[in-house]
C-alpha cells in the first residue's frame, strides 16, 4: 500500500520531450531580466498609487497647456472687464497666465515638469529599490541569474534597464508628449525652431536616468531592504538639500557646498541641457554646472565600481 502510494507520488516523466532550437546570444537575456523586474514592480498596488500621483502632474501640465491654448483661440480682441480691476485684453491675460505658470512650451516648462515629476520618481525608486534589485541579494536569487549563460554585466544591464525604463516612463516620455502637444497646438514651426528643446529633454532625461539608476542599484544592493533604502534616499535628497541650503544661504559658505545636494546638481545640468536662462537671484549662490556634472559623474562612477565589486563577490555555488 505504502509502496504503491510512493509510486503514485513519483513524477511521471514518460512524456518528457526533447527541445530543439537555436539559442540566442547572452545579450538577449538583458530584456527578460528587466521585464521580470518591472513586472514585480507593477504587481505592487503601492506603485500604482504613486504612479497615478505622478500622472496627475503630467495631466496638470497637459491640460493646462491645452486649456490655455484653447482659451487663446476663443479670445477676441475686445477688452473685457475684470471685476473691479479694470478692463484688459483676454489674449494678454492668457499670455500673462502662460508666463506665470510657465506653460508656454519654453525651457522652463520642461524643467519644471522634470523637477515636479522627479520628486515622485524619487519616492517610487526609494520604495521600489528592494523589489527591483535588493530582493535578489536578500532572497538569494542571484545564483539563479548568474548560473545561466550570461555575465554579471548582462545582469546589471538588465536591472539598470528596468530602472531606466521606469524613470523615463515617468519623466522623459511625458516630457516628450508635452513637447509634441505644444507643437501640435501652436504651430509645426515649433518643432523646427525649438529642436534644441527636444535634445534638451533627451539630455536631461539621460542625466537623470544614468545618475538615478546607478545610485539606486548601488544603494539597493548595499541596503537591500526598503526602510533603510528610504532613509538613505531621504538623507541624500532631502537632508543634504536642507544642509546645503543652510550652509550656503544661512552661513554664507561657498556655493560649492550646494554640490552635496545631488538633486540640485541634476537640476543644474538639466537647466543647461534645456537652455533655461539663469535667474540672477537664485543663481548667484549656485556652483557652475560643470562642477555639478563632475560630482554626478564621480558619484555614478563610485556606484558602478561598488556594484561590480558587490556582484562579483556573490557566491553562485556555495
Amino acid at each position, binding site marked *: 500500500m505504502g509502496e504503491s502510494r510512493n509510486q503514485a507520488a513519483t513524477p511521471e516523466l514518460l512524456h518528457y520531450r526533447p527541445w530543439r*532550437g537555436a539559442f540566442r546570444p547572452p545579450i538577449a537575456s538583458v530584456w527578460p531580466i528587466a521585464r521580470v523586474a518591472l513586472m*514585480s514592480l507593477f504587481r505592487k498596488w503601492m506603485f500604482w498609487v504613486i504612479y497615478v500621483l505622478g500622472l496627475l502632474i503630467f495631466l496638470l501640465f497637459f491640460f493646462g497647456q491645452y486649456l490655455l491654448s484653447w482659451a487663446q483661440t476663443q479670445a477676441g480682441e475686445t477688452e473685457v472687464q475684470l471685476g473691479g480691476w479694470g478692463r484688459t485684453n483676454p489674449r494678454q491675460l492668457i499670455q500673462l497666465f502662460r508666463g506665470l505658470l510657465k506653460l508656454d512650451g519654453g525651457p522652463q516648462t520642461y524643467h519644471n515638469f522634470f523637477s515636479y515629476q522627479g520628486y515622485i520618481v524619487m519616492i517610487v525608486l526609494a520604495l521600489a529599490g528592494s523589489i527591483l534589485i535588493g*530582493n535578489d541579494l536578500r532572497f538569494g*536569487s542571484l*545564483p539563479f541569474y548568474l548560473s*545561466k549563460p*550570461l555575465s554579471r554585466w548582462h545582469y546589471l544591464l538588465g536591472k539598470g534597464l528596468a530602472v531606466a525604463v521606469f524613470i523615463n516612463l515617468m519623466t522623459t516620455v511625458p516630457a516628450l508628449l508635452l513637447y509634441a502637444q505644444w507643437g501640435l497646438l501652436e504651430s509645426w514651426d515649433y518643432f523646427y525652431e525649438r529642436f534644441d528643446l527636444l535634445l534638451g529633454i533627451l539630455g536631461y532625461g539621460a542625466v537623470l536616468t544614468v545618475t538615478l539608476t546607478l545610485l539606486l542599484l548601488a544603494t539597493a544592493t548595499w541596503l537591500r531592504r526598503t526602510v533603510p533604502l528610504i532613509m538613505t534616499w531621504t538623507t541624500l535628497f532631502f537632508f543634504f538639500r536642507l544642509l546645503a541650503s543652510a550652509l550656503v544661504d544661512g552661513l554664507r559658505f561657498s556655493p560649492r557646498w550646494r554640490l552635496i545636494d545631488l538633486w540640485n546638481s541634476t537640476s543644474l545640468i538639466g537647466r543647461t541641457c534645456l537652455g533655461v536662462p539663469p535667474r540672477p537671484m537664485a543663481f548667484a549662490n549656485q556652483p557652475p554646472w560643470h562642477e555639478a556634472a563632475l560630482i554626478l559623474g564621480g558619484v555614478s562612477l563610485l556606484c558602478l565600481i561598488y556594484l561590480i565589486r558587490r556582484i562579483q563577490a556573490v557566491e*553562485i555555488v556555495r
Partner: protein
Amino acid sequence: MGPITANDNPAMIDLRNLSRWYGRFQALREVSFQLAPGRVGLLGPNGAGKSTLLKILLGLLPPSSGSGRVLGHVLGEDSAALRRTIGYMPESDALVPGLRGAEYVALAGELYGMPRREAQRRAHEVLTYLELEEARYRRLEEYSTGMKQRLKLAQALVHDPPMLLLDEPTSGLDPAGREAMLRLLLTLGREHGKAMLLSTHLLGDVECVCDTVLILHQGRLLLQGSVAELCRRRHDRYRLQIQGDATTFREELRLEGVRILHDNGRGELRVVVPPGWATRTFFALADNHRLLLRGIQPDDEDLEELFHRVLNEEGRHGRESEPGRDA
C-alpha cells in the same frame, strides 16, 4: 534527428592536473579524471573542494593551472556556451520572489537563450512532467520544500541540456520526497539520456542514482570508480542472526580473528572474517556455545563505510609518508 544526449560526446568531463588557488589556499590540487557520460556522484566532506570544482565545471571560475573539457567545451574559453549545455540546480533556494512557477521556469529558459514563446511553452511542459502543473500559477513563496526542489530541477531542465549539475538535490526533503526525487533523477538519466554530476554529502543518494563516484578530500581526488564496483559484495563480510546468549560466542569469534563491525543487541551481528575462513566454522562455534544460528548472509559494504574506509586509508598513507615518522 535524434535528441542530443551526453552520449554524443566521448567524454563528459576530462580534467588534467587541474588546480585552483584562492590566494595562498589551494582548494583543488592537481585533480585529473576522465568521465564518460553517465550518472556521477561527487562526494566529499566540507572543504573538500566540491564547490570549487562545480564552479570550474560551470565556467564560473578559471582554473589556476591545468586544463579540462566539459562536453567538449574547453574550460575557461567560452563559459557562456559551456553553461548553455549544462542545467544547474543550485543547493540554495535561488528563487525570484514575486514570480509564479511557470514564469520562473520560462525566465530560466529565456536566460539560457531560448526565444520567449518557446521558453513559455517548454516551461509548462517541464512543470507538467514534474507534476507541478497544478502549482504553475502559484507564487514561489507558497511552494513547499519538495515543490521548490522540483521547481529548481525544472529550471535546470527547461532548455533540455545534455548534462545536469545537481548540488544537493535532496536537501531538506522528507524521506518520501527524497525517494521521489532520486527516482526522478534515475529516470532522467536512464530513460532520457541525461548525464549528471550529483554533488552531495548523502552517500545513499549517490548509491541510489549514480553509476560512478568521485571522492574529493582536501582538494585532491581521493577515489574514482564505479559505484557497483566499489560496493561489490565482499567475501569477507557476513551478517549473522543468532538466538541465545551470544556473549561468549562473540568472545570466541574475536579469538578466532573475526572482527565484529556491528552488534544490534538483538542477536544480529555484522562481522569481517580473516582470510581462509570457512563458513562452517560459524556453525561449529555456535554449536559449541549451544546457540541457534538462524541466518547467515554475505554482507555488503555500503558507501558510507566505503567513504570512511577510503578516508582512513588515506589518513594512514599520509601518516606513513610523513618524513621522520619511521624514525
